[in-house]
């Protein structure tokens, strides 16, 4: 692996190197003038510039958007309306009944996303854990099986959505199998609850390999001699699982749960391609709401979309902080 990398690296760097050596002379002058501090600034500048323009500034603008009304994109053309967008989004007589909300589409998306997150994360964690445990057993051709479960992770959401749309459509493969088994064909993508289930299932299909891999890494990091010691003590295998494997895997498991939470809250691409949010609004999630309100729909309202995205961002910040906290605790624990 390393020799390959080195060779590839050498070939890749040769022509670039020639070009880069040209800038050495002016940079030496800069270094002489400014010292290490100046060089640090030089090395950081490109990244921070792009950071600033495309992440920091939009973050600031986002708040300004959420406080202003109208459909114009330029801030100067927008009128200040204070917290009206937030008020509108949060105005609800009964939060469990979306029809009573001022922005029922938003609350519909919130509830869809909430249910999606709960169901998807729970199933995802269980499936990933079982898969990781099986991949960690003394399996032959393990890398093949790992590849089987992992490869959908790299597929693009559009490809994932289209494959499954093709399989789940009324005349698709799944209905053929159902028909052969003696069942009635189902409208997988045009019946509300089936479409939602399909969204959950497809997103698990697309991402489970990633989480299984994280758990597998955790399992492989558990020292073998612990199991040997347990075997010497004659510990039953279920007990070994609950008293050794699970506690030692806990840091990875928590990472998987939080990471999949964060991604599930943002679910969009593959479901959007699969169902387009339909039927009706039964698979329309928060990101799609932001996208539709911000860009696509006739009722374009960037301010409202910004306000919604800030609410979503707040949830994500909480989740990310949880993840970072867990990661830090995990690191301490492992040392």
């Amino acid at each position: 692996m390393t020799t390959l990398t080195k060779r590839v690296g050498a070939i890749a760097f040769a022509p670039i190197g020639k070009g880069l050596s040209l800038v050495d002379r002016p940079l030496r002058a800069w270094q002489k003038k400014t010292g290490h501090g100046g060089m640090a600034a030089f090395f950081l500048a490109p990244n921070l510039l792009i950071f600033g323009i495309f992440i920091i500034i939009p973050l600031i603008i986002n708040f300004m958007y959420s406080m202003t009304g109208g459909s114009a994109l330029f801030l100067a053309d927008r009128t200040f309306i204070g917290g009206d967008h937030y008020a509108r989004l949060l105005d609800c007589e009964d939060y469990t009944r979306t029809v009573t909300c001022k922005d029922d589409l938003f609350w519909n998306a919130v509830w869809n996303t909430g249910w999606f997150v709960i169901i998807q994360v729970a199933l995802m964690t269980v499936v990933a854990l079982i898969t990781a445990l099986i991949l960690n057993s003394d399996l032959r051709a393990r890398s093949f099986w790992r590849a089987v479960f992992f490869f959908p992770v790299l597929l693009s959401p559009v490809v994932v959505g289209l494959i499954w749309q093709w399989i789940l459509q009324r005349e698709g493969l799944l209905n053929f199998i159902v028909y052969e088994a003696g069942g009635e064909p189902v409208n997988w993508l045009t019946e509300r609850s089936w479409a939602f289930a399909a969204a959950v299932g497809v997103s698990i299909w697309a991402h489970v390999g990633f989480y299984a891999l994280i758990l597998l890494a955790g399992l492989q990091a558990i020292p073998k001699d612990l199991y040997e010691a347990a075997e010497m003590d004659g510990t039953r295998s279920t007990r070994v699982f609950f008293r050794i494997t699970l506690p030692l895997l806990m840091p990875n498991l928590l990472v998987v749960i939080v990471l999949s939470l964060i991604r599930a809250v943002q679910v969009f691409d593959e479901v959007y391609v699969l169902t387009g949010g339909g039927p009706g609004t039964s698979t329309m999630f928060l990101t799609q709401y932001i996208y539709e309100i911000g860009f696509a729909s006739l009722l374009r309202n960037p301010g409202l979309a910004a306000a919604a995205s800030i609410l979503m961002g707040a949830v994500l910040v909480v989740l990310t902080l949880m993840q970072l906290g867990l990661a830090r605790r995990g690191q301490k624990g492992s040392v």
Partner: protein
Amino acid sequence: MSRAVAFLTRRRGGDRWHWTDVFTFFWLGAGLIIMFGPAVWLVGSSFKTPGQLAEFPPTILPYVEQVVEVEGFDKPLVLYDVTMEDGSVQRLAQVRRIGTTAQMIDPAAPDEVIRVNIRNREVAREIGFATENYAEPFQRLDFVRYLWNSVFVTVMATFITLFTNSMAAFALSKYKFRGRSAVMLVILATLMVPLSVILVPLYSVVSTLNLTNTLWGVILPTVATPTGVFLLRQYMLTIPDELLDAARMDKASEWQIYWRIVLPLTAPALAVLAIFSVVWRWNDFLWPLIVLSRQELYTLQVGLYSFSGELNVQWHFILAMTVVTMIPVVIVFVFLQRFITTGIAGAGLK
């Protein structure tokens, strides 16, 4: 074969079947069908003709109808295997069908018309690939443009990502300067800001910079990934500082230290980041969808999506284009699986 049997029947602990063995086989078997099946089905279907795609029940492998040119008929005739009254099977070409009776001829003796009950005939088919599903989008549609756009975006974004991220990581791992922890904090904070949260303002920034409907508008917002900076910084921290000191004694400038010493030594981490960047950028969908509204600028993903949304869904083209879209990622996966798994296990990249 015996090996396969031995593999399939090997059990935990040797002699007795344990329930976990059964479960393992069940899980792996189901996994193979559910995870791999759709892809196989996709590839198989992508070579089918539109008629065959509409067929019910479907077949896994693509077949093509056999046709024959017969003198006196304008169109090629479809061949059928006909069970004759005496029980023998003959291959005949169908001229026309009236009700439940088909008029057929023997291509070798086209003058004699044979009437056959349609229940007694079956289309003669052979495995064959409808390669026009692939050829036509390349010729007629803007598919090559999309492909080129995607390649351009992927290559440029990856190149810039590697370059800027490695420079930032170098500064953050090898220099002590005032504000270093502040910079780290800012980068850390941006980890929490997914694209979907800043969609609207990011679009206004990009349009202010006149980058809407340009590929650079797709590329630039994606390249300053905090993940990449972190990954590379962690790796660079493992490069001993003595090496840099040695280079300084060797009269190397800081820039030379970066690209002659540190960058080559970071190659494994750069490779991991490069692979992930390629996959990320190749697969990007929502952002290009927003930035690009002119069709000739579409990336593959957007092109594919918009094509699938057309009124008259032409699945045979869509499936073929989906396969083409998959190919680079599959190649990356097959050859660089090890890097990918280390990237995920080591850094939680995705």
